[in-house]
């Protein structure tokens, strides 16, 4: 026995396996990113802050005090309305663009994508410029036309928030339904036609039921987005003194800070998110298409005939409100000396850009911070996701697949809830990170880790193990095979993951708002402060900078990674 094992031991010693080191490293990092914050969130929700004893008093206070109940009702009204409107707008829009000969389909699709990458809180800022009760441009235009003293639209209202958030949620249903329609084998509809089904009958009995899971999935995504959104309600509802759950959570963080109450109050958000994501998964998983080897067929577009132009006009209203008007409003304001004067000659200036980028150290630092924290989060998330995706797919260690589940866990935690957990975990020793850049980087990394992981997991799973094993039969070690075979094959996936974390990270507001201090302000928290102070020129300039950075990155990525890189992980 000894003589047989001895040579093997020598061989093992020569090529020391780094695997366990990476495994333990991954466990530690995931602990800091995911397990500790979620653990602390759960813990402090049942603790008395003074003694640390276990209590349910926080829950009792959070859910029996009447002023804390109204926000929950408001949140539900907001989320149901937003999701319903978004689904009702997104579904026909998807059908028009995916299935008909509507003119301008490409342009519409590009505008929907633009709305997708526009954070809704920037849309909210833009709609303040357009539709604030007295000073909004649309209101003033209508008022001067009707000789009224006030404009008719008040964006600072629950209705206003629903309107703005619905606009930016249309892309969810749109994307789900459009790709559902595109994946739907054309034979399924053709089969109905050959059996005598009219176009309407086919639509009602075949097409609509088959895309219904996509519509429901879109509804659920929008509902979850709306219920967890902080920025838009903060900008539109705090002035209206109508609180929703997220703005109420923010108020718990004003002096005196009630972290334990916030943690308890945040639990329904967590529960609803978890529940609905399970429901969504069920819906999408059932009744799979069982098509085999179809030819796919040439898709014939539905001819709209005379209705083409009226339908185009109707379809265009959505991107008009979500992209065209808001972008114009933000751009015009950022180029105006004083926004209320409007973009007229003499009022036009590039001053605010010079001010934001050069003269004002506050904004200059914020721009730098956003890019720095975004890049750090993107890098960390991509590396961790790659390591764990690889270990989980190749089953290198017992428990590696559990690490994959941990990577996906933040997906069910709304940003604002995660921020409370991170605050609770790292605002005291042994890891006192509050006030440092690290706490923001942790927040961004954790929030968007699931995107990087699901993306890389798919990519790693798609690489046939034989490719690697071929290298190993030729004498390469596992690390060498990983470096020379797997990594090059994943290059696209790694870049895509990095961008998919970086883009949302530079626009992140809902956890940053709980974790930043003046020393670590980002572009988004700066926008929040400027908005509070009524500096809409500053808001618009930073908003345009964020949008410009995003659009540049997205268009570069489209060129190098192909159009579908955003969509691979959206489900």
């Amino acid at each position, binding site marked *: 026995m000894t003589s047989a094992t001895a040579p093997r031991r020598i061989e093992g010693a020569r090529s020391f396996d780094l695997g366990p080191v990476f495994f333990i490293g991954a466990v530690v990092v995931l602990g800091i990113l995911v397990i500790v914050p979620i653990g602390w969130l759960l813990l402090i929700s049942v603790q008395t802050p003074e003694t640390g004893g276990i209590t349910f008093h926080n829950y009792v206070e959070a859910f029996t005090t009447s002023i804390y109940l109204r926000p929950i009702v408001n949140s539900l009204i907001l989320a149901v309305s937003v999701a319903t409107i978004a689904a009702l707008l997104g579904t026909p829009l998807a059908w028009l663009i995916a299935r008909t000969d509507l003119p301008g389909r490409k342009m519409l699709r590009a505008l929907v994508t633009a709305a997708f990458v526009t954070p809704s809180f920037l849309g909210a800022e833009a709609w303040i410029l357009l539709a604030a009760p007295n000073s909004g441009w649309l209101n003033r235009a209508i008022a001067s036309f009707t000789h009224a003293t006030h404009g008719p639209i008040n964006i600072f209202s629950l209705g206003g928030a629903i309107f703005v958030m619905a606009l930016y949620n249309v892309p969810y249903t749109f994307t789900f339904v459009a790709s559902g329609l595109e994946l739907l*084998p054309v*034979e*399924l509809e*053709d*089969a*109905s*036609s*050959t*059996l*005598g*089904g*009219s176009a309407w*009958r086919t639509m009602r*009995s*075949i097409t609509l*039921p*088959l895309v219904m899971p996509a519509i429901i999935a879109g509804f659920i995504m929008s509902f979850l987005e709306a219920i967890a959104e902080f920025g838009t309600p903060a900008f539109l509802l705090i002035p209206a003194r109508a609180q929703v759950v997220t703005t109420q959570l923010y108020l718990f963080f004003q002096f005196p800070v009630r972290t334990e109450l916030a943690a308890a109050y945040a639990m329904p958000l967590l529960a609803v998110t978890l529940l609905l994501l399970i429901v969504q998964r069920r819906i999408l998983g059932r*009744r*799979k*298409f*069982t*098509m*085999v*080897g*179809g*030819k796919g067929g*040439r898709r*014939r577009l539905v001819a709209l005939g005379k209705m083409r132009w009226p339908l185009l006009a109707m379809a265009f209203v959505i991107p008009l409100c979500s992209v065209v008007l808001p972008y114009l409003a933000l751009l015009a304001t950022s180029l105006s000396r004083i926004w209320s004067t409007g973009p007229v000659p003499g009022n036009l200036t590039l001053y605010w850009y010079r001010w934001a980028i050069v003269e004002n150290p506050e904004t200059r630092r914020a721009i730098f911070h956003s890019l720095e924290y975004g890049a750090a989060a993107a890098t960390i998330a991509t590396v961790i996701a790659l390591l764990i995706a690889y270990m989980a797919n190749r089953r290198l260690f017992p428990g590696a697949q559990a690490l994959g589940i941990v990577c996906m866990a933040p997906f069910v935690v709304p940003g604002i809830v995660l921020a409370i957990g991170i605050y609770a975990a790292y605002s005291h020793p042994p890891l006192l990170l509050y006030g440092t850049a690290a706490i923001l980087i942790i927040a961004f990394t954790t929030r968007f880790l699931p995107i990087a992981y699901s993306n890389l997991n798919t990519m790693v799973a798609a690489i046939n193990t034989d490719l690697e094993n071929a290298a190993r039969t030729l004498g390469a070690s596992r690390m060498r095979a990983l470096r020379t075979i797997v990594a090059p094959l994943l290059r696209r996936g790694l870049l895509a993951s990095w961008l998919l974390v970086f883009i949302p990270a530079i626009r992140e507001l809902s956890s940053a708002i709980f974790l930043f201090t003046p020393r670590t302000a980002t572009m988004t928290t700066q926008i929040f402060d400027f908005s509070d102070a009524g500096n809409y020129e500053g808001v618009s300039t930073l908003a345009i900078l964020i949008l410009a950075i995003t659009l540049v990155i997205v268009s570069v990525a489209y060129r190098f990674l192909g159009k579908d890189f955003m969509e691979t992980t959206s489900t």
Partner: protein
Amino acid sequence: MARIDIAGLTKSYAGRNAARAVDGIDLAIADGEVMALVGPSGCGKTTTLQLLAGFLKPDAGTITVGERVVSSPRNVVPPEKRRMSLIFQSYAVWPHMTVFENVAYGLHVMKLSRSEIEDRTTKVLQTVRMTDLAHRYPSELSGGQQQRVALARAVVVNPETLLLDEPLSNLDANLREEMRFEIRRIHDTTGITMVYVTHDQTEAMVAADRIALMRAGKIAQIGTAYDIYEKPATAFVATFVGGTNTLPATLVEPHTVEFGGAKLKVRDDFDPAARGPVTLCIRPHEIGFAEWTGDDGLGYRENGTNRLAGTVLRQTYLGDARDYLIDLGGTQIRVAAPPTVDRTVGSTVHLDVPVDACRIVPGD
């Protein structure tokens, strides 16, 4: 039931290579006939079927069913008004409906009474032996079962015509054989006109009354399986159906060609005007090895065979046969010999071919 007349049917797809997918085909399908459209991929057979179903509008030509022109460049009767059922290669069984609902769909569209729908659906499910699985969803069915659902769904509405687009290509070999006969059986009990697209010649031979062999958008030959196998019109037909050796020869006298310096008798003949280069077609299994008798006596011999001489380049033992590749001095020929005939590579051999097995087709 109705006969189908296709006249001058032409269709090109828009695009850079605007080659004609279907290039002026004429085809008459008798009432109650099973016509197979056979050919290699890209030959236009599926496009023809899509034109027949009314999914595509022809660029030229017409399709007439009975007395009614259903397709012309000016007007196309839409698929839902043609009384033609189509069986898709992918089956296209709706995943959100049970077997029963799938089959009953066309009857619901016809607005039949509930009890009649129930009756007819139940009956057709019996015919395809799917009664026990009526309330399953398609995701719970095997490929063969889905195929039966597709078949039941298509025939339950009593269509005038049944179109089948490669219906068996996704089934495994055993099931394919079973379903071939199943489809033929459904035809024989209903007498429905069928147009059957396939790339598999055996499938066509089993299922069809006549076969239209297509190539590059045109019909190369129409006929019964026997006609096409025994009397191929071109080298392509002979190669595609059954496989054949094609040898360049010259037609010099009636029923006589010159090949490799020897004169061979052949079964066919052309007009004196068409004499000249022809292609000699000999199927591999019709060639036999003869005992070596020296170089004299090559060519036609009085016993009714043609004798060729060559060198064995390769032989492969296949269990039920030996596959030989033999060099005839520049041209190579495949021979399927009985497994007991064992000639070593490099040896010189004589081959005998009966005159009836030597066919000629025009061309070089």
